[in-house]
């Protein structure tokens, strides 16, 4: 709009290589104050690297950055921070053993006589939390006692406390509840009015549509298009992102499963602590049962309870009509149960990042490829090759550490690892969080193929589109109990939102999650 004014921040000719891989090639970006600038692209398109370069976490191999027309270089995150760039990272940058206030002012607390002034710090922390719309968080609480959604709010408060001129949000809303998202959006709009430049990275197209003024699409390490928000259709945007003809993201909806079959998995009145209350459900072979509702209403706990991770679970569990008790993941994956859980946090619960793709893949299935306790390397290799091609996992070698793969490919490794034990029941805990459209599409197809081959699937997702398009039935949870069940054509956006909130209206606003 204001073509003559110097942009607040500008970068061009930016390239960065990791080993033989070009993360960024001659990329450019120009950011203006008072606008929310969305960055779109698949995982591996170079968005994360771009942000890390702006935030001083990594240095570019070539190219230049200009802040208010002056060339700048950042050797560390603290230098970028001093220049007025604050970043809310997707990987949380909070220190678990310190308090909320300590974390918000971790690198530059108020001081008196050279020592930290804790009273002042506390006041400022309260102000920062209020500014982020998170006054429910006590500034003296320790981070490790807070649930993920509260931590993310602290992270946002921390970035705001630095009074940045450029605020970068990298998937900053991925762990937030819907009411938090609304608050954060209000905050961001206010900051836009105050003249800040906001860089917003998200995989959620709806959020971008609601929030962004201008969008830049990245593909293969290059910025391929920049346009005013609202001037392109979703289909056009996705085409730009994946660089190929966009068809349907979701495979056709599943055919209804005959109701008279015997269920593979059946639970009755499952309760645990105050997080699960009398949950009953049954899943038949070939059926995909979704778990819906607001985030944090017991969906994750239900999956963990089924997998034997929680202690003190009451209620009945039947597999193929026979009552079983599952004492832990080992007995859950045993052939008589045949259960697999794709965890939410792949970095800690799904993968051993420094170990190779090969090792990660065969951990769960070692029993299948070994004879008398000795691993049959030939059988292992064949099975791995089969899985790598089935899921189209892109890795430079099966001996490369899993940590070197892109997020989407890491998630595929987690899934492949469990498919190697040929499970009959698959539990999925929000498996597409933070992965790109292309990989999502592959996962949906895979889900459908598995169901068609007779696997029973329980699928928790925070993305309503996924529930609508992938599930035969959806159970909506609220405060630990199932409050409604939707089926077939009855699974609509409206129905999901309405049933997720119907009880919420009775009990006032959605209760903030309490510390575990």
């Amino acid at each position: 709009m204001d073509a003559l004014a110097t942009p607040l921040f500008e970068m061009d000719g930016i390239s960065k290589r990791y080993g033989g891989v070009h993360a960024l090639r001659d990329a450019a970006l120009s950011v203006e104050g008072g606008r929310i600038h969305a960055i779109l692209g698949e995982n591996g398109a170079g968005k994360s690297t771009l942000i890390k370069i702006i935030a001083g976490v990594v240095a570019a191999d070539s190219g230049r950055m200009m802040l208010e027309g002056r060339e700048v270089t950042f050797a560390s995150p603290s230098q970028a921070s001093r220049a007025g760039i604050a970043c809310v990272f997707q990987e949380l940058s909070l220190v678990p053993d310190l308090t909320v206030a300590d974390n918000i002012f971790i690198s530059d607390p108020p001081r008196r006589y050279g020592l930290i002034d804790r009273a002042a710090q506390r006041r400022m922390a309260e102000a920062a939390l209020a500014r982020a719309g998170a006054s429910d968080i006590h500034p003296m609480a320790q981070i490790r006692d807070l649930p993920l959604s509260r931590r993310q709010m602290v992270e946002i408060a921390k970035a705001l406390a630095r009074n940045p001129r450029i605020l970068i949000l990298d998937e900053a809303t991925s762990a937030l509840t819907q009411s938090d998202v609304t608050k954060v959006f209000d905050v961001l709009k206010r900051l836009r009015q105050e003249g800040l430049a906001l860089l917003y990275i998200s995989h959620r197209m709806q959020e971008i549509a609601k929030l962004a003024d201008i969008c830049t699409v990245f593909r293969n390490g290059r910025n391929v298009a920049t346009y005013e928000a609202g001037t392109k259709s979703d289909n056009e945007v996705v085409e730009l992102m994946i660089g190929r003809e966009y068809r349907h993201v979701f495979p056709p909806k599943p055919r209804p499963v005959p109701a008279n079959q015997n269920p593979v998995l059946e639970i009755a009145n499952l309760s645990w602590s105050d997080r699960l209350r009398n949950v009953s459900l049954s899943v038949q072979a070939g059926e995909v049962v979704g778990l819906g509702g607001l985030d944090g209403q017991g969906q994750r706990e239900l999956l963990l309870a089924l997998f034997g991770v929680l202690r003190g679970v009451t209620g009945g569990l039947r597999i193929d009509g026979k009552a079983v008790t599952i004492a832990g993941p080992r007995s859950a994956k045993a052939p008589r149960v045949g259960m697999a859980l794709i965890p939410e946090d792949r970095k800690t619960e799904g993968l051993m990042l420094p170990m190779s793709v090969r090792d990660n893949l065969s951990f769960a299935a070692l029993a299948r490829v070994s004879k008398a306790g000795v691993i049959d390397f030939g059988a292992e290799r064949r099975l791995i090759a089969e899985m790598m091609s089935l899921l189209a996992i892109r890795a430079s070698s099966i001996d490369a550490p899993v940590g070197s793969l892109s997020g989407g490919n890491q998630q595929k490794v987690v899934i492949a690892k469990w498919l190697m034990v040929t499970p009959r029941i698959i539990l999925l805990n929000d498996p597409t969080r933070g992965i790109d459209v292309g990989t999502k599409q592959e996962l949906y197809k895979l889900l459908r193929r598995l169901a068609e081959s007779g696997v029973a699937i329980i699928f928790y997702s925070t993305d309503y589109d996924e529930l609508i398009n992938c599930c035969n039935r959806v159970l909506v949870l609220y405060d630990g109990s199932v409050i409604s069940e939707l089926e077939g054509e009855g699974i609509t956006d409206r129905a999901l939102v309405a049933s997720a909130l119907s009880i919420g209206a009775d009990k006032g606003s959605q209760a903030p999650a309490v510390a575990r």
Partner: protein
Amino acid sequence: MKDWRYIIREQRGTLIAMALFVAMFAIYVTNHPAGFTLNVVTTASNKGVLLAFIAMAQTLVVVTAGIDLSLGMIFVLTNCLASWLVTGSPLETAFGVAAVLAAGLACGMLNGLIVIFGRLQPIVTTIATGAIFFGMALLLRPVPGGEVNQDLADALTGKLADKVPASLVVLIAVVLVVWMPFRRSLTGRAAYATGSSEAAAYMSGVAIRKARFVAYSLAGLLAGIGGLFLTFFTYSGEASAANGNTYTLYSIAAVVLGGVSLFGGIGSAIGAIFGAFAFRTIGDLLFVFDLEPLWQPLFQGVVLLLAVCLGAFRLLQIRNRLDYFG
């Protein structure tokens, strides 16, 4: 309104260590023939203060998720150095004290530099530097001997104004001058942040290297103060490998008793000091109950195990098995 609950939660380890020590010491003095007198307290203070200094030193390093196995040897080395230097006229003695403390600090700085710039693991680094420090101690004192300014020694191991144990006053002074400022400084917070989550600390622009360096350096200094006090008690220097190793291991025990997490990021030197005194009181309890001193290591081991179990009670309440690993 609920502030105090957050404070108690944060200081839980320290409070438990304090309670443990108070309970043990109460049992000790009520069964002691002399009862709760200044002499009994002074003796207890003098017995515990050496380990308290080393435990404080260990806390600084453990908080950054490191460990310093050379502290016992810095303690022995500074003891041998003090038995040469801390003697003669008041001026010479003052110079000697300064030199001994500087030597402790230098040892700590060496550890810090190697760990940070050599990127070596603290455990390996400090085993190696510990051996070097012990070698230097042997060069200084091939056989036990030397002397110390007796006036100063008696003043600091006796009673101050006939009312309080001088060693306790010095310990509190060191807490106020070294520990409290560290805890309240940006560097101290950086040390906790580094120990708690190094990656998050780095992303937040925390000065990680500086925090590590200061932690190791101050640990050396505190071990030097310990060595100086050892000289005041023994009036001589001795390059004793057994002594060095014992103090290193006991310092780790004291730190654990004091509620400091060996994984870093949690705990306080004040807790470790109470841990050290509690550990020392075990021997005294055996004495008042007329048990053979030979039982001491066994009892110390049992108490340590119990303390660790106490920390593990938390695990019984865990209802999500994934929390075992967090």
